[in-house]
């Protein structure tokens, strides 16, 4: 842990204050009366599990969202940004995980996009290059990044430095960085930290969102923990430990009712086995799935959960290892092979990947079945009846089977996707965030249905960012980290157990 005082007295007035921020979305209270203060020259880390409200808070700060209530005070004056551009010109910058840079333009052109220096009516290239050079020099990056290099020619870490330079060009006093080290190598992280130290010395306040505890303990001065849209605590970094943070981040009463777990006699023998599965984003995947069992998959964002689902389903297939179904080795190289092996996937983003929005409920439900049966298979009355039955079975509320699915609520849309797979007699169902964006009542509904499916003899793999859901539904839980399975927990673990495995903090309590 570094010495955070760095010889400077802490200024008395915070350069940034967010006070009483509340934000509601349909069906969910994203932020509830959250407050935050940042001082010049400090690195203020923000931690919280997925969905705790970190990114919502930052989006409100930079003006991408408007809060329902609360205020933001910058440099002692209240501000109200209606658009991220306004935030930027008021000395507040944010660097997202996906950079806002154009790959085919130069460093200088990107930094000064929209405000190119002009001389006698034409772009003053020389001035632009000179100023870019100065900015890069300030970051001590001028010997390997030149103003005339194309963004395309730079590594991710170098592009990030360009983003920082861009913020400096706006004379940012507050810089927000969202998961800045996600794509960096250890040596690049060191370079970034040196830059952060420099920025601190210059009196810039940095808000640092990350889930990598070792980095936070290395670079941050204070840390704020968000949980379920509320600020749980703000501590000096010297006053907390990693496991202490984890305990603050999670740990809640299981207030929602979940259907009972499977009894051990209802769980069958392994029916899908994956050995040594790997591809570009995953490695060492070994798991078994059994009929009648719901297996939960937990892990932090970027740990590889969705990649695992897509690999099993053949959307981003395994390139090494073997998959065995019912004793036979199968090759799943595209979704159609998976479907032919009776596997179904409910994707994270049902609107983009699960549904054809302008088609009817019936056509969406029968989609996979029709795809399997052949392009010229006959349209039969029996199929229509099957569709009606399935829709009833999963309890889809709609204005009839001919209604376009785009008009259904989120919960009902999800049920349509489920019905689609049931129409193809799946044996393994993979759910990726099954209840995201769905209101509370529909959530319970879907949980019931998932348990019923397991009881009917199907194997279920359920990925969720909501720890209560994973704990409530999982007969056992796989925890992923950095592209592999970090560990497995039996049913009903504590949230902290999951979180510790997910963050890699092997700390004994």
């Amino acid at each position, binding site marked *: 842990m570094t010495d955070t005082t760095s010889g400077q007295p802490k200024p008395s007035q915070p350069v940034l204050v967010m006070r009483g921020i509340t934000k509601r979305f349909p069906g969910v209270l994203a932020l509830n009366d959250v407050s935050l203060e940042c001082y010049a020259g400090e690195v203020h880390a923000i931690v919280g599990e997925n969905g705790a409200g970190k990114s919502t808070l930052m989006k409100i700060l930079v003006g991408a969202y408007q809060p329902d209530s609360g205020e933001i005070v910058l440099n002692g004056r209240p501000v109200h940004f209606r658009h991220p551009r306004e935030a930027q010109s008021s000395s507040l910058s944010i660097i997202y995980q996906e950079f806002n*840079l*154009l790959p*085919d*333009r130069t460093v200088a*052109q990107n930094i000064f*996009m929209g405000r*190119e220096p002009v001389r006698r009516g034409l*772009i003053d290239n020389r001035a632009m290059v000179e100023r870019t050079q100065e900015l890069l020099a300030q970051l001590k990056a001028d010997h390997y990044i030149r103003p005339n290099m194309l963004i395309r020619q730079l590594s991710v870490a170098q592009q990030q430095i360009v983003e920082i330079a861009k913020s400096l060009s706006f004379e940012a006093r507050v810089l927000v960085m969202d998961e800045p080290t996600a794509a960096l190598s250890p040596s690049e992280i060191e370079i970034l930290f040196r830059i952060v130290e420099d920025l601190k010395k210059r009196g810039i306040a940095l808000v640092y969102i990350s889930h990598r505890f070792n980095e936070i303990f290395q670079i941050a001065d204070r840390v704020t923990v968000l949980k379920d849209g509320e600020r749980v605590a703000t501590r000096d970094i010297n006053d907390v430990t990693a496991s202490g943070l984890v305990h603050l981040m999670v740990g809640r009463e299981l207030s929602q009712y979940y259907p009972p777990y499977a009894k051990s006699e209802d769980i069958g023998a392994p029916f899908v086995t994956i050995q040594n599965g790997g591809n570009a984003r995953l490695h060492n995947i070994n798991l078994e799935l059994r009929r009648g069992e719901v297996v939960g998959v937990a892990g932090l964002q970027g740990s590889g959960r969705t990649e695992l689902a897509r690999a099993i389903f053949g959307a981003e297939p395994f390139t090494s290892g073997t998959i065995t179904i019912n004793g036979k080795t199968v090759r799943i190289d595209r979704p159609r092979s998976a479907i032919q092996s009776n596997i179904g996937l409910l994707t994270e983003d049902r609107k983009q990947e699960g549904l054809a929005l302008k088609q009817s409920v019936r056509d969406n439900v029968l989609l996979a079945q029709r795809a399997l049966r052949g392009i010229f298979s006959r349209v039969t009355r029996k199929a229509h009846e099957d569709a009606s039955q399935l829709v009833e079975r999963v309890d889809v509320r709609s204005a009839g089977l001919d209604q376009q699915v785009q008009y259904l609520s989120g919960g009902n849309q999800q049920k349509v996707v489920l019905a689609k797979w049931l129409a193809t007699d799946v044996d393994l169902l993979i759910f990726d965030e099954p209840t995201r964006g769905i209101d509370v009542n529909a959530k319970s509904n879907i949980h019931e249905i998932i348990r019923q499916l397991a009881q009917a003899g199907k194997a279920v793999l359920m990925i969720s960012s909501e720890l209560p859901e994973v704990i409530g539904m999982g007969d056992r839980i796989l925890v992923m980290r950095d592209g592999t399975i970090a560990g497995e927990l039996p049913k009903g673990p504590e949230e902290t157990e999951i979180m510790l495995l997910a963050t890699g903090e092997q700390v004994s309590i």
Partner: protein
Amino acid sequence: MSVQSRARLARIRTFIDSLNLPAVYLILVITFVTAYLLTTLFGRGDFLSSSTLTNMMVRSVALGIVAVGQTFVILGASIDLSVAYLISVTAVMASYIMQGETSNIPLALAVVLGIGVVVGTVNGLIVTRLKVNPLITTLGTGLVMHGILNASFDNFVGAVPSSFQVLGYDNVGPVPVSVLLLATVVLLGNFILQRTTFGAHLYSVGGSEETARLSGVRTSRVIIGAHIICSLTAVLTGLFIVSRTGAGAPWLGPDGVYDLESIAVTVLGGTALSGGKGGVWGTIAGVFIFAILATLFNQIGMDTYLRQVLRGLIIIIAVAAYQYRSKEQAA
């Protein structure tokens, strides 16, 4: 190979790399050399004569001018399929107004340039405000022009005074006037793209409209501006064509396939169809490649219609190749 010649080769390679030329220039050189060899072996053998080369240049003028304009819209991630019909409209209107009298030239020029501005503005507005796909937009406006033109005229119209035909036929010293016009358009186009704020913003909008907007660029204005520039170049091409034919007719534009060919040479020149990347120097190289091929086919006596088959296929191949290449870079 000796150490010295290897070192010399390396120095040459470094020099070529530093010039930062688009890959198309390599293709241009290869095409030129191949054409020279083939015509010397199978054709009339006068490939390098001044008359052949001059012919090639003049052939490049019509396509070249409008291709510069097309480069602008494609850079902005848009496209313009209406240029062929606008060329016809220009040729007919100019000829109709001039009626063979030099005194009518200024009026004719004013009118056709005005039409160009209007067409470009309409194209730009439909794309940016009504949010219609640019392919469909310009296909539609082209059709409307086609209909209005053909409903009003069905044959050669009016006449162009010989003083105006200077543009089509005369030389300034050894250089044809038309080639000077092309050079001016290319240099001016390049200047706008590289030195003005509009040019920088055009590249930004083409690269990512969202990012450009977030940086404060007025994206609609930029796209409309690009469309106006494209239409104006189409007008210039129309004026050049009519200065050579002596009178305008409704089929002049479509006959020359200026819409598809201007797109093809732009893509061949390295400007990405998705926008944000490329420039007029590449396009001009593409134009020359097409001119060389046309001369080659002429000299070896290839059937006119087979040439057309090739034109169609080349367009498909050019777009496919550049898409493939850009995917490789992204990987």
